[in-house]
């Protein structure tokens, strides 16, 4: 298997590591640049306000379900329509080009989003597997979490 020509963003979300192909534009925002969401019934952990528009950031567990935000420092916002959407991350790192070898991967069972499965690849190192997000499905999933 040849090294991938894409670059990948390594995201640690709720203690679990995932990869995201850097085919989409993204920004990394520090907590200071966001305002905490105080609405108790809302799944949104924080907001990023840009020119009068606010983008939600979600705190997710390793199962990608929303959970209360604990001690966090940064969020990754993905460029999307109609609005950008963010994930609170424990760590974020752009892996060097050619460092990863991504294998195709088809998750079993029904897709959890109407955009399809959340993953379409995997980085395999020995017996260890890191799943690779399918960007469209990930954005669709995050946008479906609501405000």
């Amino acid at each position, binding site marked *: *298997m040849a090294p991938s020509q894409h670059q990948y963003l390594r995201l640690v979300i709720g203690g*679990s590591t995932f990869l995201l192909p850097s085919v989409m534009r993204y920004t990394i925002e520090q907590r200071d640049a966001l305002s905490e969401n105080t609405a108790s019934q809302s799944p949104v952990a924080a907001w990023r306000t840009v020119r009068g528009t606010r983008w939600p950031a979600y705190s997710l567990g*390793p*199962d*990608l*379900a929303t959970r209360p935000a604990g001690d966090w420092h940064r969020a990754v916002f993905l460029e999307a329509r109609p609005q950008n959407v963010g994930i609170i991350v424990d760590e974020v790192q752009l892996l060097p080009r050619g460092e990863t*070898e991504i*294998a*195709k*991967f*088809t*998750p*079993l*069972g*029904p*897709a*959890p989003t109407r955009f*399809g499965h*959340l*993953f379409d690849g*995997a980085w*395999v*190192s*020995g*017996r*260890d*597997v*890191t*799943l690779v997000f399918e960007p469209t499905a990930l954005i669709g999933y995050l946008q479906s979490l609501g405000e």
Partner: protein
Amino acid sequence: MRRQNTDRLYVLEIPLGNTSLLLPSAKIAEVISIGRLAPVPYAPDWLLGVTGWRSLAVPVVSFEGFLGGHRMLPGAGAKIVVLYPLTGRNEWEFVSILSSAEPRPRSVEEAGLVTAQEADLPNSPYVAGGLKTPEGRLLIVPDLEALKTTFYPF
């Protein structure tokens, strides 16, 4: 299915919790030891996770989940039986089944194995048939087409 000599059909008995599966040896790529399974968010309950094998991510399935029981979790001595991609699927789509112990090669023509009656079989669309040992133990033959439809419902 792999046949040797004349009419012997070779299969692998895959021990589960209370019963066993019987699969043609020709469907099995390798039996490997259990390692750390990476969880797959929003996966069905019968999917235990994925493991790395030959640079591929291979889903690990608990067949008990298809029999209406609790899914089997990896215990001491558990093995992963890696199956070749199911008919019609892509060449990288290997799947695997969790075995509670080392699988055992058998021959369908072994003395004493008899066809299981329908009443002996679990009422599940994922069961194609079965055999019984002289001791009365059930060996289930899974319906791979039914599994494929559930694995890949799109």
